[in-house]
């Protein structure tokens, strides 16, 4: 099934093509059916049902909380287990009557009640151990429900619970790097792929980025690198992933496109903020240089391998090489908390943004174009407010930058026209 925006656009285009006689009118329904149009009829029903079970879940929890002190332990257990069993019984009942969406909503309610029951049982029996283990147990129960039923709603809950678990372990218990989360994540991501569920793939990508982001201090403790050296991990690994994604054709579930988009986003954000943290006064660690060169080589190899695909060109090789060299060069050059390189880095960031827009345009990738454009807007605002003390400096910077961009646009347009026109016919003598 294609994304909704694609289906909407296809419907508009189809009408125009039929009006022009490019497509026979009798093919309309077959074409739309091939991209999954009309299958979202139950969406409102699903949303209402999910909202409903969340409210019911909140109601059950409030009821239990309000009467907690008055209940004996057997009554508590009866209420806790009974409410969970009732939710799953209703899931079975609705599913058996062909109301799968409502049934899925009650599976989600069962998962929510399973989690609350863990905490209520722990409270009743004064189980006061390592509490992230309770969150892990909840996530495992949600994953089991997602796999066995199978249930997309339970999978979404599992990914959110998993992210909360790794937050607890990393931020509240200062675990250096919570590698156990990767096992949980891999199971969830594999299940999202198995269920062929695009939002699940998005959730998996977001959960991984979340884990990656909160592991900053853990990576620093493990590697002994400075802030800026650690930040290059967030630049170079996503760049390598984004480049690698260009090697493969987009599959029907959009997995390659989705992974590429999130990798691009992470790369662009990390590249833009690379100049903010401090580095060590004596320069980078030797182990860092080995990492940076290796990841740069992977990125370049991937983008060269993707040249065979339509859209990837020598510009992308040059852009990737520039991004890698700029990253390595910056870390090799900057010392301590110096801001002397802020202006050169601003120029480098602009070049990377322009390359991203160019790549997005050639790959016909709206995500890359849109976020690169947003990045450009933010870049202008940052340059305006942060870097120049005087209005005259700002005027010179923006005017020269604008003239250069216009000149670049004209040059590219001329190049495109000459390529589209092809070689001039040679004069022949009669």
């Amino acid at each position: 099934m294609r994304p909704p925006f694609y289906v909407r656009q296809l419907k508009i285009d189809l009408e125009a093509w039929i009006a022009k006689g490019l497509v026979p009118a009798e093919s309309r329904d077959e074409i739309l059916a091939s991209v999954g149009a009309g299958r979202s009829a139950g969406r409102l029903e699903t949303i209402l049902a999910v909202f409903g079970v969340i409210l019911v879940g909140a109601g059950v929890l409030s009821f239990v909380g309000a009467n907690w002190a008055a209940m004996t332990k057997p009554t508590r257990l009866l209420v806790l287990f009974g409410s969970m069993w009732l939710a799953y019984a209703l899931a079975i009942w609705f599913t058996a009557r062909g109301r799968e969406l409502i049934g899925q909503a009650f599976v989600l309610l069962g998962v929510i009640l399973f989690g609350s029951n863990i905490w209520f049982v722990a409270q009743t029996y004064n189980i006061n151990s390592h509490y992230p283990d309770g969150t892990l147990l909840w996530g495992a129960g949600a994953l089991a429900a997602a796999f066995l039923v199978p249930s997309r709603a339970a999978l979404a809950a599992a990914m959110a619970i998993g992210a909360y678990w790794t937050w607890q372990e990393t931020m509240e218990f200062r675990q250096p790097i919570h590698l156990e989360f990767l096992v949980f994540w891999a199971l969830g991501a594999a299940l999202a792929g198995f269920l062929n569920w695009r939002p699940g793939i998005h959730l998996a990508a977001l959960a991984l980025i979340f884990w990656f982001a909160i592991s900053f201090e853990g990576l620093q403790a493990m590697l002994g690198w400075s802030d800026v050296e650690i930040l290059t991990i967030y630049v170079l690994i996503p760049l390598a992933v984004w480049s690698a994604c260009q090697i493969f054709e987009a599959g029907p579930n959009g997995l390659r496109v989705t992974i590429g988009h999130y990798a691009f986003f992470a790369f662009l954000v990390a590249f833009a903020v690379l100049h903010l943290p401090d580095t060590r006064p004596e320069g980078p660690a030797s182990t860092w240089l080995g990492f940076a060169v290796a990841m740069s080589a992977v990125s370049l190899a991937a983008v060269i391998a993707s040249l065979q695909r339509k859209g990837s060109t020598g510009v992308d090789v040059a852009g990737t090489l520039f991004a890698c060299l700029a990253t390595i060069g910056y870390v090799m050059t900057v010392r301590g908390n110096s801001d002397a390189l802020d202006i050169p880095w601003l120029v480098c960031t602009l070049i990377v943004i322009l390359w991203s827009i160019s790549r997005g345009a050639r790959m016909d990738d709206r995500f890359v174009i849109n976020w690169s454009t947003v990045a450009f807007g933010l870049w202008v605002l940052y340059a305006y407010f942060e870097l120049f003390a005087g209005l005259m400096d700002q005027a010179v910077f923006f005017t020269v930058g604008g003239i250069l961009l216009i000149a670049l646009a004209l040059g590219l347009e001329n190049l495109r026209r000459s390529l589209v026109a092809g070689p001039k016919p040679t004069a022949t003598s009669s």
Partner: protein
Amino acid sequence: MTMIRILIVVALQSAALAYMIVDRQAMLNAGRVVTLKVAPIDPRDIFRGDYVILSYDISRLEPAKLQGDDKFEYGQTVYVTLVREGEVWNAAAVAKDKPVALQGGVPLRGSVQSFETGDGGITTSLTVSYGIESYFVPEGTGRALEDERQKGGLSIDVAIDAQGRGAIKALRRGGQVFYVEGVF
């Protein structure tokens, strides 16, 4: 088919919850029970919601005064060997990998919450959590329990299983048991 699958989910999740209860009951039925004196703590932070925070004499240790190891790290699992001194039990040794065996001693497992170091990286003081630091009480009864604790008259019985895990088995006021944990 879907019904069977959902029933499997129900069975798995119910089994997980039941295991929590059974495991706790198994710990409470463990043969070794020690009595710990509850230490008064800062009354501004002691009562949150419907549970009281409990601190013990064995929560804060000075490794130099005990047998066992003298260097510890955050989050590390430690075994504190308790020996009986009159009506209550106190720490006699603290070790990282395996408990120090002492005549009549009972090892209790905990994890390092914080520590201070002196010369040569020697740990001078150690705060250890044993999983028995909070106790849920019926709404409205926490204040009386706090008052008793602040007077120094509160102690608890802790059941310790073969792995060294501890669970609150009973509460004592002035040495007399006034509450006993159970399944029902």
